[in-house]
C-alpha cells in the first residue's frame, strides 16, 4: 500500500475530529491560534458552537480544557507537540493528569516532521515527558487511516490522552477498514529472527527493512506500537521469547521514548537484546525530513544493517 499518495497524519485528525464533533456535541476543540496548521479548520467551520480559540496562550488552553472537562465536556486541546508537551506540561500534570480529567491533547508536528521549521519546532521529547505522568495515555498513529481510527478510539475512551501527528506527509500503511485498540500493538508481519518495533512515521521504514531482510533470508517481525503508554507488554515479551532480538525505531529521542519503554520490559525479563534507532539525543536543523532522519541513522539501510549484525 506504500504506493498510495503520502499524506500527513494531522489531516486524518482534522477529518475525524469534525466527524466526531457532529456525533457528540460534548466534543470541543480548544485551539491556541495554530488551528489552521493543525487541521481544525473543518471543525471550526462546521461546528462553531463547539469551537474555542484561546489565542497564543498554551498554559491557559490546558487549564480551560480542564475546567470544561469537569463539566462533562470532552475537549481536544490542539497545538504542536513541542508546545503541548512542554509549554503546557505542568498544567497537563496538575490540572489534567492528577485530577484524571477527560482531556485529549492532540498535537501535530511530532518528531522531526516539521523539518523546514528547524529545531525549535521539531519535538523529540514529548512522548518521553508525557509517559511519565500518571494517568496519561500516549499514542502516535502510523498513517492517515490509523490517525482517524485512534482519534475516534481516544474520543470514546475516558481519560487524559496525548495523540501525536506528523506535519509532513508520510506513507500510508493501512486501509480504511483497519481496526485499532489503544494499548494493543499491531503486528504487520511475522518473523522468527528479529523483531522491529516502530511507531508513527517510522513504521513504514520498519516494513521496508523487513522486506529487504526477507530477501537476504532474515525473517523479521514488525510491530506498530502506536501506543507507548500503556505499552503492550505482552507483545514485547512475545518478541523476546520468539525472536530474542529487537530493534526499536522511532522519530523521537532514543532517551525515554518507545525504545526506552521496550528496554524497560526486556531488562526486567532478564533475556533478549534491544537496539534503539531514533534521534541521537541531539537537536535538529532546517533540512529535508528524510535528511533529518538520515542524520540520526533512522533509515531502512541502518535498520537492515543492525538486524544483520545483531
Amino acid at each position: 500500500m506504500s504506493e498510495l499518495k503520502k499524506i500527513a497524519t494531522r489531516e486524518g485528525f482534522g477529518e475525524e475530529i469534525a466527524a466526531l464533533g457532529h456525533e457528540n456535541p460534548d466534543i470541543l476543540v480548544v485551539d491556541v491560534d495554530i488551528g489552521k496548521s493543525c487541521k481544525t479548520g473543518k471543525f471550526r467551520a462546521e461546528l462553531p458552537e463547539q469551537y474555542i480559540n484561546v489565542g497564543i496562550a498554551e498554559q491557559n488552553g490546558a487549564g480551560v480544557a480542564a475546567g470544561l472537562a469537569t463539566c462533562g465536556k470532552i475537549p481536544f486541546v490542539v497545538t504542536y507537540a513541542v508546545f503541548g508537551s512542554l509549554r503546557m506540561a505542568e498544567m497537563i500534570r496538575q490540572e489534567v493528569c492528577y485530577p484524571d480529567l477527560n482531556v485529549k491533547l492532540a498535537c501535530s508536528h511530532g518528531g522531526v516532521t516539521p523539518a523546514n521549521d528547524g529545531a525549535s519546532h521539531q519535538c523529540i521529547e514529548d512522548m518521553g515527558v508525557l509517559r511519565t505522568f500518571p494517568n496519561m495515555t500516549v499514542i502516535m498513529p502510523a498513517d492517515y487511516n490509523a490517525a482517524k481510527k485512534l482519534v475516534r478510539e481516544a474520543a470514546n475512551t475516558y481519560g487524559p490522552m496525548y495523540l501525536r501527528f506528523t506535519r509532513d506527509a508520510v506513507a500510508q500503511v493501512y486501509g480504511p477498514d483497519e481496526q485499532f485498540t489503544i494499548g494493543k500493538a499491531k503486528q504487520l508481519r511475522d518473523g522468527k529472527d528479529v523483531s522491529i518495533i516502530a511507531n508513527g512515521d517510522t513504521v513504514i521504514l520498519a516494513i521496508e527493512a523487513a522486506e529487504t531482510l526477507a530477501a537476504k533470508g532474515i525473517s523479521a517481525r514488525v510491530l506498530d506500537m502506536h501506543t507507548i503508554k500503556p505499552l503492550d507488554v505482552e507483545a514485547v515479551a512475545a518478541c523476546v521469547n520468539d525472536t530474542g532480538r529487537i530493534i526499536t525505531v522511532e522519530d523521537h529521542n532514543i532517551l525515554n521514548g518507545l525504545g526506552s519503554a521496550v528496554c524497560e520490559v526486556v531488562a526486567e525479563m532478564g533475556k533478549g537484546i534491544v537496539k534503539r534507532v531514533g534521534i541521537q539525543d541531539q537537536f535538529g536543523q532546517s533540512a529535508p525530513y528524510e535528511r533529518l532522519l538520515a542524520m540520526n541513522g533512522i533509515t531502512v539501510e541502518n535498520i537492515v544493517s543492525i538486524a544483520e549484525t545483531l
Partner: protein
Amino acid sequence: MKDISIKELENTATRMRMKVVDMIYKAQSGHPGGSLSAADFMTACYFYDMNVDPANPRWPDRDRMVLSKGHVCPIQYACLATRGFFPEEELDTLRKEGSKLQGHPSMNKCPGIDISTGSLGQGLACGVGMALAGKLDKKDYRVYVVVGDGEAQEGEIWEAANTAHKYALDNLVVFVDVNGLQLDGTTDQVMPNGDLGEKFKAFGFDVTYLDGHDMAAIVKALDDCRASRNGRPKALIAKTVKGKGVSYMEDQVGWHGVAPNKEQYEQAMAELRAQLKA
C-alpha cells in the same frame, strides 16, 4: 440568597478561623496566614451565596469554587465540613496519610472540591473553562475563583483573564485576596503588582474594590455580581490582612506556612473566641 444576618456570617467566619487554626495546629503543618485572610469571603460564599448540595457534591447545576491559591485549603475544608460535605471530625486528618484533606486540594479525594489545585496561577484558567461550559450548556451556575495577590505575578492568570473577556463570562467572579504578603516578603519587595484592579479593568473585567474583612461589603459585592448579566467577568479586589484575627500572625510574612505551637495555639483560639459576637 440565604436568609442569614451579617452578624451570623461574621460569627461563622470567626468559627471557620478557629477550625483553620485547630486543623493546622493538629497537623503541625499548613498555611494559616492566607487561610485567615480569605476566611470572610469564603464564609460569605459557602454560607450566603453559593448554591451547592452537600448530598450531591457533583450536582451539575451547582455553583463552583476554584481555590487557585490552593495552599489555603484549610479554610475551604472548614467551610465544606461545616456545610456537611464530610464529617467535621475529618478536619483532624488534614495532611495525614490516607486523608481526604490533602495539603493542597484534590477533587477526587475530597467531596466539594471542584478542581484540584496547588500550583499557583492555574486556577483561573480552570474557572474560565467551567464558566464557558456553563455558557455553552445555557446553565445558570456561577464560578468563583480565589486568586492571591502574589499569585497574580503568574502569567497564566492574565492569559485566562483575556479568555474570560473574550467569551463574555459574566458568570465568573475572581476574588483577589490582596493581603500584600508572599512567601519571600511583601509583594512590593518581591514583585510589585501595582493596582490589580486597574489591570483587571484593562482586561475587560467589572472591578469592585472592597475591604475583604467587611462582611456587609462582601455580601453586597456578591449580590451585585449575581445581578449583573452584562457580558463582563467580575473581579473583586479585596484588601485583606494576612493572618487576620490572630494578633501575632497579622501582617507577618513569617506566618505564611508555619503551624502554631501549643502556647500560640491556645492564644489564637482564645483571641478568636473573644471575637464571637453575642
